[in-house]
């Protein structure tokens, strides 16, 4: 079924925030005021005149649709309006304008362990939490064993929750919420707590809920890997407005990058540096390879990643190496190389140099990537620029042929596959390879 289960139409939410008008400070003025207007303070309190009010739009004119069974990610900077959107969806707070049409019950997990009381035991809290999240006693009893098994706290079921470690607490809380059976499940950044094992388990369960049970999931997270793995579509919120909705990779790229704005040649001298750098040798410029006839840092899938790097040295230094690392949009270091591994002469005279660097055709999947540059001599770190350049790998004929859209990883190299038929004895039959 592909009906629309959530339709958000021009949703807006504003909050009124108060600012204290800068009263003429100083005790003397305050006392004067108090004597001149003895009940002024009471009048001001009731009519709230002393504070200025400002309207803050947490959400402005957001519209989108979600179909049944979809897993939609919601990403954005802190303060973009993600939690507000979820709160309105969960009917915890009312919108200021616009509307949402829902088909199906919504269960939200906005915080892990909502309603847990530290004095009650694990067993009692399962019932309490389940009831608060909307399950009936019969439902909870039915799922009790599953919940306990998922949380792995059988031994501590009858100890008060205040004695649990934070890991146990979080596992139990998620276990209860994971066994709700709503048509629409809304999850807000709860994976930020818990260890890697737990996060894997939660993601697996959410995947399960969507694929096997056909439920719709709205997932807010800062963990781009999780969003990439779980979601089919992604909503990007920026300062309360809908910035982008659609394919997950491009949403993440928009969130993390600004590839399009880079010129072909980038001046690195003006970039801010971190502390502790010797700076006897410095990065000057980085630019696209002249032969590539392009002005944008876009490389088709399968093309060589080539660029030129200008450095200038102020002294004679016997040995210094250049390191180039490529990072994914989610911040994972994928490739690391050092000039000294392949160059014979790594000495520097006090002059400028240009490196022509070819990382090879790495078969990086289409998406946004970042390059970090480092320069180290035997005296210490000379220069370092994190995220010096961003580039994009684009779809090409080759990527279509390789069907890279279906991959969730980082690279798709042309692997070699050879196949031989086996005869009855389990030995390869006489060369009949494909």
């Amino acid at each position, binding site marked *: 079924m592909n009906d629309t289960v959530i339709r958000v139409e021009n949703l807006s939410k504003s*909050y009124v925030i108060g600012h204290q008008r800068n009263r003429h400070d100083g005790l003397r003025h305050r006392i004067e005021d108090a004597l001149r207007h003895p009940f002024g303070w009471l009048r001001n309190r009731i009519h709230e005149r002393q504070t200025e009010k400002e309207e803050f739009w947490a959400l402005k004119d957001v519209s989108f649709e979600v179909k049944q069974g979809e897993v939609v990610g919601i990403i954005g900077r802190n303060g973009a309006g993600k939690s507000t959107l979820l*709160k*309105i*969806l*969960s*009917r*915890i*707070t*009312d*919108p*200021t*304008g*616009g*509307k*949402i*049409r*829902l*088909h*199906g019950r*919504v269960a*939200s997990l*906005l*915080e892990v362990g*909502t*309603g847990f*009381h530290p*004095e*009650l035991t694990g067993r*009692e809290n399962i*019932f*309490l939490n389940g*009831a*608060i*999240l*909307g399950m*009936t*006693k019969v439902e909870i009893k039915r799922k009790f064993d599953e919940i306990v098994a998922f949380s792995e706290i059988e031994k501590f079921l009858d100890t*008060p929750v205040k004695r649990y470690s934070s890991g146990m607490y979080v596992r139990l809380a998620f276990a209860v919420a994971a066994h709700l059976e709503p*048509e629409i499940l809304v999850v807000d950044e709860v994976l930020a707590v818990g260890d890697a094992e737990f996060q894997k388990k939660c993601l697996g369960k959410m995947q399960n809920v969507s694929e096997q049970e056909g439920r719709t999931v709205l997932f807010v997270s800062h963990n781009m890997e999780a969003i990439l793995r779980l979601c089919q579509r992604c909503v990007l919120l920026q300062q309360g407005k809908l910035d982008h909705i659609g394919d997950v990779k491009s949403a993440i790229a928009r969130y993390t990058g600004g590839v399009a704005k880079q010129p072909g040649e980038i001046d690195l001298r003006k970039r801010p540096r971190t502390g502790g750098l010797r700076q006897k040798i410095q990065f000057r410029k980085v630019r696209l390879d002249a032969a590539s006839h392009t002005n944008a840092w876009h490389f088709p899938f399968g093309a060589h990643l080539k660029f030129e790097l200008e450095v200038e040295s102020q002294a004679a230094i016997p040995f210094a190496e250049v390191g180039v690392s490529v990072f994914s949009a989610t911040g994972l270091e994928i490739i690391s190389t050092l000039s000294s591994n392949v160059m014979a002469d790594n000495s520097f005279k006090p002059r400028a140099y240009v490196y022509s660097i070819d990382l090879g055709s790495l078969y990086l999947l289409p998406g946004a990537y970042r390059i970090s540059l480092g320069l180290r001599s035997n005296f210490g770190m000379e220069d370092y620029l994190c995220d010096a350049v961003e580039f994009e790998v684009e779809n090409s004929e080759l990527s279509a042929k390789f069907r890279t859209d279906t991959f969730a990883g980082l690279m798709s190299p042309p692997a070699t596959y050879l196949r031989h038929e086996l005869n009855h004895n389990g030995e390869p039959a006489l060369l009949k390879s494909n």
Partner: protein
Amino acid sequence: MDELVIEAGRTERQYWRDLWHYRELFFFLAWRDLLIRYKQTVVGVAWALIRPALAILVVTFVGQVAKLSAGGVPHALFAACGVLPWQFFSTALSESGNSLVNNSNLISKVYFPRLVAPASSVITSFVDFLITGAFVGILMIWFHFAPPANIWVLPAFVLLAFAASFGAGLWIAALMVKYRDFRFIVPFIVQFGLYASPVIESTSDVHGKWQRLIFCLNPVAGIIDGFRWCLLGHDNIIYWPGLISSIAGVILLVLTGIWYFRKTERTFADVI
């Protein structure tokens, strides 16, 4: 599955259906409050008896010292039948008044019809009421006292007391969210109310037609009189104008309470 529309200022028919769907939550929250009350205590559930027992003791003592009438029954019983409904009302009032603020983490993170919170506090106080009621029964046996035939009307007065607590509780709960002043006002109302209600004295002790009328503007007055009439009889009669004003007052409290609560409910999560 029918469509649910979330929109600013839209009153939902859904709300009453939701209350039914969340009916078990009433009891779960009451169960939680009762459980945690006695966790890690030594005396445990016995506290539920000690509190009313002490109150009855004090009221009896004051009544006897001031030589107030006891309506023709042993003074302890007179006191007990006043303390019983009064303690129900006063604890229900303060607990449901605080229910939203105490559950603020729930209010801001989970959806459930907020009416459940003060209602479950009244249920918690009702359990205390039943325990105190059993204690009063024991007292009656001790005094070899047989209740009059009117006792079968008692459930009606219990219902009235329940409604009064609920209505007043709703008002205080909704007001407390925005105006935390009520945290101080409520204990004051309870203290003041102890003297403004016929707990220590009886309504018949209030002389003067106008004074008595004003006295009976207090909805709890009619309820306490009713309790005494049902349980004790003898000289404890019902002051009919008082009872009628009580019933009217309670109905007004409940209806306006629900109206105000629903009106302000949409802003709870933002203000709490």
